[in-house]
C-alpha cells in the first residue's frame, strides 16, 4: 500500500514536471509565432498611413513617387515637379488640415458634407498640388488622380537608410542604420570586455590565491546584479563626458560610450564562463606540462588556454548576445541618432533602444507598430544565431575530449 502510494506520488510529480516543461516550451513558441505574425504584417502595407491616399492633379505626368521622394517633397527639399520627371511646375503641398485655408466653414457644410467636393475642386484647379487626404473622400466624382503606392518590400526594409517611422505622409522604414548600430556597439563591447574578462578569469583560476579568489568572485557576480538603468545613468554622467574630453569630440553620446557600458555589463558573463572552462582543464595535463619543465606562464599559454578555447569562445559569444539585446543602458548613452555610423565615435541607434523608445506611442496594429515587431524579429534572429553558434562550439568541445 505504502509502495503504491509512493509510486503514485512519483508519477504525479513527474506529471507536474512534464506539464511545466511543456508549458514553457509552448509559451516560447507562442511568443515567437506572435512576434513573427505581428512583424510580417509590415510587408502587407504601403508606407502611407492607413485610410489615407495621395492625390495629384489629373494633368500631372508623374506616375509614381518613391517614399523617400515623398518625404523630400513634404520636407520641401523637392519643390518642383521637374525634379521627379514631371512638368516644370512648383509643388503645392496640401494636408487635410489645410482645408480651412482654402474654404470657409459654410463651404464645408455644417456636418462637413461638402468636404469631398471641395477637395475635388481644389485638386482640379491647382496643377502643382500633391494632396494627402483620407481615402474615403476619393469617390467616383473625384477630379484628381490617386497615386498608387508600392507595398514595403523586405529588401527595401532591410537596406533602407532612413528611419522616420512617424514621418507624414510616408513613413521611412529603413532599418540598415539600426542593424549596423547594434552590431557596431556589440562588437566593440566584446573587443573591450574580452581581453579584460579573459585576464581576470585566468588570474582567478590559475594565479590568485584562494583567499583573493573568495573576495573577487562575489564582487564580480555583484556586477551582474546591478540594474541596467543604473549602468546607463553611470554611463551618461561619467563615461559620456570622459569620452568627449579624451577624444576631443563635439558630442560624447557615441557608440563607444555604449560599448564601454555594455562591455562592463558583459564582463560577469565572460569571466564566469571562461573561468569555468579554464578550471575544467584536467589536472593531469597541467602537471604533465609542468613535469616537462614548462613554467607557469608557458603552461597557461600553451596548455590551458588552447584546451579551454571553445569555452572561452562560448563566453565571448554569450557576452555578445547579452550586449545585442541590452536596452536601457544603451538608450541613455548612445545618442540614438538613426544614421549609419562611420566610426565608433559617432552617435548610433540600436534596435532594442528603438523598440523601447517608440513602442509606447505607436498605435496598435498600425504600420509603425508592425515595423517595431519586425525589428524584434531581426533581433530575435541575431540572438538565436549567436546561441546556435554557442551550441555548435560547445558540441565541438565534447568531440575534442573523446
Amino acid at each position, binding site marked *: 500500500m505504502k509502495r503504491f502510494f509512493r509510486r503514485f506520488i512519483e508519477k504525479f510529480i513527474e506529471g507536474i514536471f512534464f506539464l511545466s516543461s511543456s508549458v514553457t516550451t509552448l509559451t516560447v513558441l507562442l511568443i515567437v509565432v506572435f512576434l513573427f505574425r505581428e512583424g510580417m504584417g509590415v510587408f502587407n502595407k504601403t508606407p502611407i498611413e492607413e*485610410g*489615407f491616399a495621395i492625390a495629384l492633379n489629373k494633368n500631372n505626368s508623374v506616375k509614381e513617387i518613391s517614399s523617400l521622394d515623398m*518625404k523630400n517633397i*513634404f*520636407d*520641401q527639399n523637392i519643390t518642383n515637379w521637374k525634379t521627379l520627371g514631371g512638368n516644370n511646375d512648383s509643388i503645392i503641398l496640401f*494636408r*487635410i*488640415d489645410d*482645408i480651412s485655408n482654402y474654404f470657409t466653414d459654410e463651404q464645408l457644410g455644417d*456636418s*462637413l458634407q461638402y*468636404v469631398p467636393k471641395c477637395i475635388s475642386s481644389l485638386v482640379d484647379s491647382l496643377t502643382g498640388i500633391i494632396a494627402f487626404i*483620407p481615402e474615403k473622400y476619393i469617390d467616383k466624382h473625384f477630379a484628381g488622380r490617386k497615386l498608387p503606392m508600392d507595398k514595403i518590400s523586405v529588401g527595401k526594409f532591410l537596406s533602407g537608410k*532612413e*528611419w*522616420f*517611422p*512617424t*514621418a*507624414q505622409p510616408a513613413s521611412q522604414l529603413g532599418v540598415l*542604420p539600426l542593424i549596423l548600430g547594434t552590431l557596431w556597439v556589440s562588437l566593440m563591447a566584446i573587443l573591450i570586455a574580452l581581453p579584460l574578462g579573459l585576464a581576470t578569469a585566468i588570474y582567478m583560476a590559475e594565479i590568485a590565491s584562494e583567499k583573493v579568489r573568495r573576495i573577487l568572485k562575489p564582487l564580480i557576480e555583484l556586477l551582474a546584479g546591478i540594474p541596467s538603468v543604473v549602468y546607463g545613468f553611470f554611463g*551618461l*554622467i561619467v563615461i*559620456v*563626458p570622459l569620452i*568627449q574630453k579624451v577624444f576631443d569630440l*563635439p*558630442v*560624447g*553620446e557615441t557608440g563607444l560610450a555604449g560599448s564601454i557600458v555594455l562591455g562592463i555589463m558583459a564582463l560577469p558573463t565572460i569571466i564566469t564562463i571562461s573561468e569555468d572552462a579554464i578550471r575544467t582543464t584536467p589536472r593531469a595535463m597541467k602537471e604533465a606540462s609542468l613535469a616537462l619543465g614548462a613554467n607557469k606562464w608557458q603552461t597557461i599559454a600553451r596548455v590551458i588556454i588552447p584546451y579551454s578555447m571553445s569555452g572561452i569562445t562560448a563566453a565571448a559569444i554569450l557576452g555578445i548576445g547579452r550586449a545585442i539585446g541590452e536596452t536601457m543602458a544603451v*538608450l*541613455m548613452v548612445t*545618442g*540614438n*541618432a*538613426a*544614421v549609419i555610423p562611420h566610426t565608433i565615435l559617432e*552617435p548610433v*541607434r540600436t534596435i532594442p533602444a528603438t523598440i*523601447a*523608445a*517608440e*513602442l*509606447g*506611442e*505607436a*498605435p496598435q496594429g498600425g504600420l509603425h507598430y508592425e515595423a517595431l515587431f519586425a525589428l524584434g524579429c531581426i533581433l530575435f534572429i541575431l540572438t538565436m544565431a549567436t546561441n546556435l553558434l554557442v551550441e555548435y562550439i560547445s558540441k565541438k568541445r565534447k568531440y575534442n575530449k573523446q
Partner: protein
Amino acid sequence: MKKIKTIALFGTIIISAVAFKLGDINIKIKGSDTVLPLSQKEAEVFMKKNPMAKITVIGGGSGVGIAAFLDGTTDIAMSSRKIKMSEKMKLQDAGKAYKEVVIANDALSIIVNPNNKVSQLTREQLEGIFTGKITNWKDVGGDDEKIIAYSRESSSGTYEFFKEHVLNNKNYGSTVLNMPATGAIVQSISQTKGAIGYIGLAYMEKTVKDVKVSYDKGKTYVEATVPNAQSKTYPITRPLYYYYLTKDAAKVKPLIDFILSADGQKIVGEVGYVPLSK
C-alpha cells in the same frame, strides 16, 4: 415565500446599485502623456474633496486618448494637440457631438550650453538647426563650433509639437540625437559645448541657458517665462485640451469646473505647466 425572498433580494440589489450610481461620479480620462501628470494631480485633489468621486486616469498618448474617445471607452480625452481634421470627421460620422476645453498651457524653452554665446534665435534658424541644414554655430552668430541638436524620442508629445510649430511640419534631420527623458537632455546639454535642445518650461535648470526666440524673422525676441507664455507673446506655447461628449457634460462638469478654478489652476503651476490667464 421563496418568490418574495428572490424579489426582495433583487430589489435590494437594484436599489443599492442605483444609490451607488447616484452618489458616485465615475470618470475615465485617457490620452496624452504630457497631460497625464497634471490630470493625475487634479484628480487626486478632486477625489480628496469629493470622496464619492472615482476618477481613473490613463496615459497612452493624445492619439490613443482620442481613439478611445471615439470608441466610447473613455469619458474625457486629454490631448496635447488640437483634435485633427480626420478625427473630427470620424466623430462626425459616428454622430457624436463633443466639447473642447483648454485646461492649461505648456511652453517649450530652447536651451543651450551655458558657455554658448548665442542668446537668441529665430524660428527659421531653429528649423535649419533641427532639420540638419545649419550645422555650425558661426552661421547663427556663435563660435566656430559644431551644432549638436538634441530632441526627445518620437513617442513624446513634445516631439510632435516641436515638429509642427517650429519645424513647420518638416522632419527632423537624421543626425539629431534622441534622448529618452527631459532629464537626460538637460544633463547632456550641460556637458556638451555645442548642444541645443528643447524642454518643457517647468524643467528649466541653472546648468543650462535658455535662448530668446523670434517668430517674426528677428524683429522681436521673447524670453521663455511663465508671464510671456500666459500672454501668448512667447510663441512656442501650446494649449492642453480636454475633450468630452456633449451628452456627458453634466457628469464631467464638476471636475472641469474644479480644474478651471483658482485652486485647480494653482495645481497647474505646481505640476509645472502654465496656468490659464484670468
